């Protein structure tokens, strides 16, 4: 038996679920096909940063639009997703770094974006008293914050279903064929058919693209995170670095999450990831230098998610270059969580109206065939 729908979304990460939700809000009946369960991979196990700060310039408009959705996330999905807005701070470790941040903030302002604010040492110590005295300043994005990634992904999934979407989990796509103006999606649970297919398959999106004869240079990566036992509260904003890799956040329960993009190894066939302790040791040393209070911390757990990275570290968003009715939404290169709500809305706009208000040309899949 063939199951038909208005659109088939492949992948129930936050992007797939958000696109399904926004399609349903526009009156379509989408089906999301997920090989594991919603939020099992990058969407559910990332650091949960909701960040406009320090983004690639091409991503800034999307990130700012997404932020507006985060700020009314409970209205959108019926759950606060654990979102809190304590700001995010990019710390400069040297004067030279601070100068480069100043140039960036100035350039952003000339294009009309004011969410990034350069701060001096005194303001930095006010926002992040625990930071090492040697840091000369940084940049703050005050509306930024963090959310619970798994809970958020589940909330998008639930709301999409509530509005008429279907989510089938534990089902893997095996082939895509075009038949009389519709896409036939063969899976381990039978055939699905729809005029529209959205490839939001994260680390596995390269396979879907290859099935369409549209190969992309997607690298499967496994960004690692560590978490400590509970500590007395000492920091409110999320802190990130650019020179050395770090993202750093303390939860309400006192545990501290240490991330920043050091990579382990992933096997997308088996979903297995292996941690690289030499690199986690680098993270630990960065934390040691930046936050003296952390020298007493105990690491209780470490893990890695499986994610897709593009060679230029920005995602693929937009229509397929070769297959009519197919849209891509992947390759967020370990910073796609915050973009989920906004890019889902944008995809639904693109699919139903044929265009978007925000510029998406930089994310075209065509850029890899030039």
């Amino acid at each position, binding site marked *: 038996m063939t199951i038909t729908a208005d659109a088939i979304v492949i992948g129930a990460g936050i992007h797939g679920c958000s696109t399904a939700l926004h399609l349903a809000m526009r009156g379509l009946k989408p089906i999301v096909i997920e090989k594991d*369960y919603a*939020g*099992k991979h990058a969407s*559910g196990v990332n650091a949960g940063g909701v960040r406009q700060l320090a983004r690639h310039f091409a991503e800034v408009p999307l990130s700012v639009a997404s932020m507006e959705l985060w700020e009314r996330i409970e209205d959108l999905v019926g759950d606060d997703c654990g979102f809190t807005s304590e700001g995010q701070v990019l710390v400069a470790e040297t004067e030279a770094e601070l100068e480069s941040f100043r140039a960036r903030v100035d350039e952003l302002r000339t294009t009309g974006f004011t969410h990034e604010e350069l701060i001096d040492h005194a303001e930095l110590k006010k926002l992040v008293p625990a930071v090492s005295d040697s840091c000369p300043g940084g940049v703050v994005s005050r509306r930024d914050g963090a959310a*619970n990634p*798994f*809970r958020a992904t*589940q909330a998008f999934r639930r709301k999409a279903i509530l509005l008429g979407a279907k989510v089938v989990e534990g089902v893997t796509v095996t082939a895509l064929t075009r038949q009389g103006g519709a896409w036939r999606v063969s899976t381990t649970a039978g055939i699905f058919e729809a005029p529209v297919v959205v490839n939001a398959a994260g680390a596995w999106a390269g396979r879907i693209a290859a099935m369409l004869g549209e190969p992309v240079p997607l690298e499967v990566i496994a960004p690692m995170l*560590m978490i*400590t*036992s509970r500590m007395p509260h000492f920091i409110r904003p999320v802190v990130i670095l650019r020179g050395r890799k770090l993202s750093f956040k303390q939860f309400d*329960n006192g545990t501290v999450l240490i991330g920043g993009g050091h990579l382990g190894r992933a096997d997308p066939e*088996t979903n*297995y990831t*292996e*941690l690289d*302790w*030499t690199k*986690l*040791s*680098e993270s*630990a*040393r960065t*934390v*040691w230098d930046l936050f003296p209070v*952390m*020298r*007493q*911390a*105990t*690491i*209780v*757990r*470490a*893990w890695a998610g499986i994610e897709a990275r593009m060679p230029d570290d920005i995602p693929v968003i937009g229509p397929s270059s070769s297959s009519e009715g197919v849209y891509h939404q992947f390759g967020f290169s370990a910073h796609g969580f915050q973009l989920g709500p906004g890019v889902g809305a944008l995809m639904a706009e693109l699919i139903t109206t044929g265009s978007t208000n925000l510029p998406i040309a930089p994310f075209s899949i065509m850029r890899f065939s030039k």
Partner: protein
Amino acid sequence: MSGSTVLENSYELAIIGAGPAGLAAGAMAAKAGLTTIVLDENPAPGGQIYRAVKTTPVRREDILGADYWHGRELVQEFESSGAQLVSGATVWSVSRALELGVSYGGRTHLINARRIILATGALERPFPIPGWTLPGVMTAGGAQTLLKTSGLVPSGRVVLAGTGPLLWLLAAQILRAGGDITAILDTTPRENYVRALRQLPSFLISPYFAKGLRLLTEVRRKTRVISGITKLEAHGQDKLTDVLFAAGNQPATRMSADLLLLHQGVVPNINLTMSIGIAHRWDELQLCWIPVLDRYGNSSVPGIAIAGDGAGIGGALAAAERGRLAAYAAVKALKPEALSHLPSEQLLFQALSKAEAGRAFLDTLYQPPQRFRVPVDDATLVCRCEEVTAGQIRETVALGCEGPNQLKSFLRCGMGACQGRLCGLTVTEMIAAERRVSPEHVGYYRLRPPVKPIPLAEIAAMPQPESALKAVVRG
């Protein structure tokens, strides 16, 4: 603890755990000439069963019993073998590339091995009853550890509750050491006796039969035993004051108590094996996860074998035999010319099957009842670290949470420092019961290293590869 042993960067064989399996494996491998290291968390060899066998202050040999002192021979055999024992070493990570992360002497060491034998043994099955987290309630295994290491005999009104050989052994040891036991509340379901009868013939020839019978008779002569317990609760404000219990369909009775020792069997300690991604199966008889192994103990990950109770509960004698078999397989793989110095494979398998005789009888007789594995009362804590109750778990499963990993994300259940050791089995069985599917289908927490907490300072001070050192000099 300050380390006094020098750790090399690589060994032919690394064994984790110095209980019967690890000691026997280490002795055999070293005799065959493999460079062998045994890493053990405790201050002295012996594991749980032979804990402190060289150092215990309990000098009267009858108190801990002949089976305990048997451990001395294993330790002696090990010590004369040339294997290196590192006590006080915590292995917190094992990778598929056979690299071990070891915390020892306040430092982290990364050690490579050509083969690894995991002999990390068993831990006590969770016993989630109302009040099980009150001060004054502890596990029988915990009490036995205190007895072995420090000669501490429980005092006051002591109640033992549960089922399984260790419960009876501890009762006998307490009594022999001059302690008093107010009552033993036996939770063994009556129907287990009938079901176990079928397994009786093989048990009659097992080494455990005569000893077990003597032990039961000894304890029953000196202590009040109440059988067929169907309800068990620990009560008290800040600490235990009463135990509420009922036998069969009888009304509940209250008993004053200062100490309640709980036990309902032991299960493989799978934290390390799960964190490596080794394949496991749910065992319907032992009601726990058991790694999938071939007959030598080789796991689904090439180069890693598992021996001892971590490979499925078999007891101390079977553990040693499994250790020898795993060592034999390691020698066969790495240094086949040395096999002639070892007992034949056939002899080793014979010894194992002798040691395992009668296990099915014990497993059937002492299979703990569902009501004490899956809490009936919604207020009962399941995850002690994050204080998650049975009721919260049931609600979350009803909302559509299908497995332990989603439960972690929803409730933080299993995310505390114990890494699920105290709640993992309960959570699997609860979700299975609520969803009416098998535990095998539900699965277990996805575990990650470090399997034991490790100071950030140690990770930060880890030895760096040369490329990283150069980067530091440049910076």
